[in-house]
C-alpha cells in the first residue's frame, strides 16, 4: 500500500534520511519506532510529500507521488489521512467545521458534508459535540476530532505523526484502541511513527526501528520475535546485556502456561536458575522471554528438548 524506496533527505549537510526503504502492506498497522532525531518524522512527511525527498520514490496505493504535479498531488493527498501530535485543529472553527474542512477542500456539497460530518463524529465517539470549539475539548477528544477529519475523504491510508505523544497513558490507550478498531472495521492501512515502545506493542503488526536516518530492523513483529538476536526483542524485553557467558535466553511465543521449564528439570539431570524475564502481550498473543543458567550433565540434551518444544533458544557466547 505504501512503498518507499531509496529515500534520502538532506538539509544542507545534515542527512535526515539515509537510504530508507519502507514497505507497508494493505490493511496493516505499521509502526516506525525511534528516538527523536532518528528521522522518523521526516520519513512520515516524505510519504505524503510534505517534505520532498532529495532522492528516492514514494508510491501510495499504486500511485508514484514523487512524479505528480502539484494539482495531482493535492488530489492524491485527499486520499491520505494524517493526524498530528498537537492535533492541528483550526481554532476558528467548531468541531464540525474542522471535520468538514477536508470535505470543503474536496468540493463536497453542503448537504452531503453535513451528513458525512455527523457520520464521522459518531464513528470516533463524539456525536453531539459538533458545535463545540476545539478549546473546550480534552486532549483525547481533540485527537478524535483529528481522526474524524483525517477520515473524511475515505482515505486508504492514515499517517499518524506521534498522535498519542501529547496524551496521558489512559487516553493514549483509548486512542490506540480507536485506531485498532478503524483498522479492523474499515480495513484502513495505518503508518504511525512513535518513540514509545508501548504503542508498537499495543497496536502494530509490523515495525521498523529507526536510528540516525536509517532503518536498522524491520518486519512483521511476530516474525521478528522469532528471530534470534533481533533488536526489537531485546528492546521489548530488557534483560541485562550482554548476557553472561553460558547463560541461556528462552523466548516463548505459544501459551505462556506451557510447563516447559519444569518439564526440562524433571526430565533431565539439570539445575536451572532464573536470571530474569518477563511476559508481554503483543502481536495478538503472549510472548515471554526468560534468561536462565543451566547446570548439569544433560544441559545439551535439555537445550535440544527446549528447541524441539518450539522455544527460541539463544546461548550466550554462541552464534545464533
Amino acid at each position, binding site marked *: 500500500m505504501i512503498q518507499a524506496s531509496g529515500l534520502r533527505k538532506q538539509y544542507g549537510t545534515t542527512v535526515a534520511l539515509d537510504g530508507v526503504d519502507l514497505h507497508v502492506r494493505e490493511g496493516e498497522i505499521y509502526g516506525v519506532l525511534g528516538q527523536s532525531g532518528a528521522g522518523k518524522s521526516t520519513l512520515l512527511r516524505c510519504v*505524503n510529500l510534505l517534505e520532498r525527498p532529495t532522492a528516492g520514490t514514494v508510491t501510495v496505493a499504486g500511485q508514484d507521488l514523487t512524479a505528480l504535479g502539484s494539482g495531482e498531488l493535492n488530489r*492524491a493527498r485527499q486520499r491520505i489521512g*494524517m493526524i*498530528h501530535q498537537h492535533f492541528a485543529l483550526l481554532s*476558528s472553527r467548531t468541531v464540525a467545521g474542522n471535520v468538514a474542512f477536508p470535505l*470543503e*477542500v474536496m468540493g463536497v456539497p453542503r448537504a452531503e458534508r453535513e451528513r458525512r460530518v455527523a457520520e464521522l463524529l459518531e464513528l470516533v465517539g463524539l456525536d453531539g459535540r459538533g458545535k463545540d470549539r476545539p478549546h473546550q475539548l480534552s486532549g483525547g477528544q481533540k485527537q478524535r476530532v483529528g481522526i474524524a477529519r483525517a477520515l473524511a475523504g475515505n482515505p486508504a491510508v492514515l499517517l499518524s505523526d506521534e498522535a498519542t505523544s501529547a496524551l496521558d497513558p489512559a487516553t493514549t490507550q483509548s486512542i490506540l484502541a480507536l485506531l485498532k478498531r478503524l483498522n479492523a472495521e474499515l480495513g484502513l492501512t495505518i503508518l504511525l511513527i512513535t518513540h514509545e515502545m508501548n504503542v508498537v506493542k499495543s497496536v502494530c503488526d509490523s515495525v521498523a526501528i529507526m536510528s540516525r536516518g536509517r532503518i536498522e530492523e524491520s518486519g512483521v513483529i511476530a516474525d521478528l520475535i522469532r528471530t534470534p538476536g533481533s533488536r526489537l526483542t531485546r528492546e521489548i524485553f530488557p534483560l541485562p546485556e550482554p548476557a553472561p557467558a553460558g547463560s541461556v535466553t528462552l523466548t516463548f511465543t505459544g501459551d505462556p502456561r506451557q510447563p516447559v521449564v519444569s518439564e526440562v528439570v524433571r526430565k533431565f539431570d539439570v539445575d536451572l536458575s532464573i536470571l530474569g524475564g518477563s511476559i508481554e502481550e503483543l502481536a495478538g498473543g503472549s510472548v515471554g522471554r526468560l534468561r536462565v543458567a543451566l547446570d548439569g550433565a544433560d544441559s545439551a540434551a535439555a537445550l535440544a528438548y527446549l528447541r524441539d518444544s518450539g522455544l527460541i533458544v539463544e546461548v550466550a557466547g554462541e552464534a545464533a
Partner: protein
Amino acid sequence: MTWEEMLPLLWPATLETAQMVGWSTLFTALLGLPLGVALVAFDRGGLRPAPAFKSALGFVVNVGRSLPFIVLMIAIIPFTRLVVGTTIGTAAFVVPLTVGAVPFFARLVETALREVGADVVQAAQAMGASRTTIVRKVLLPEALPGLVAGLTVTVVALIGYSAMAGTLGGGGLGDLAVRYGYQRFETLLMIVTVVLLLVIVQLLQSLGDWVARRLSHK
C-alpha cells in the same frame, strides 16, 4: 467662545475627520491585507517561497514606514493630483493617508499571520488544500482576532495622521485645533477638541478590543 459658537465648528470638523479616516481605513484594509499576505506567503518557508521578491517587497514597505507622515504627504502631492485631480480638501488627503497606512497595516497583518501555527498550515497541506484555500480558509480566519487588533491600531494611527493632514488643507479636527487653538488662542475650543479626540480614540480602541475578543476561540 460659547457652545453655540463652537458647535457649528466642531460638528463639520468631526465629520471631515471621520470621512478622511473612514475612507483611508477602507483602502488601507483593501491594499494592506493582500500585501501582508504576500509578505508571509513569499517568505522563505512560506506557501510560495520567493525570498528575493519578498525582500524587495519588504524594502518598499520599509521605505513607506520610514518616511515621516508630514514629509510623505508633501512628497506624493503629484501622485495625489493624478488620483483625485486636486491636492486640497478632505478627499485629496485620503490618498496620502492610505499610502502612509498601508505599509504600517501590512506589517501588522504579517505579524498576525505568523501567529498561525505552522502545524495547522501543514495539516491543511496534508489534506490537499491549495495555496489559495489555505490563505482563505486557514490563515485569514485563524488570524482574524489579530487582524482586527491590527486594524484598530491602524485606525487610531490614521486619526493621528489625519490631524497632520488638516494643517495642509485637509480639514477636520486637526485643522480646527491649529486655526482656533493655536492661531487664535481659543483655549476652550482647544480643550474640547482634545477631549473629543480622546473619546473617539478610546471608543474605537474598546470596540476593536471587544470584537477581537469575541472572535478569539483560544
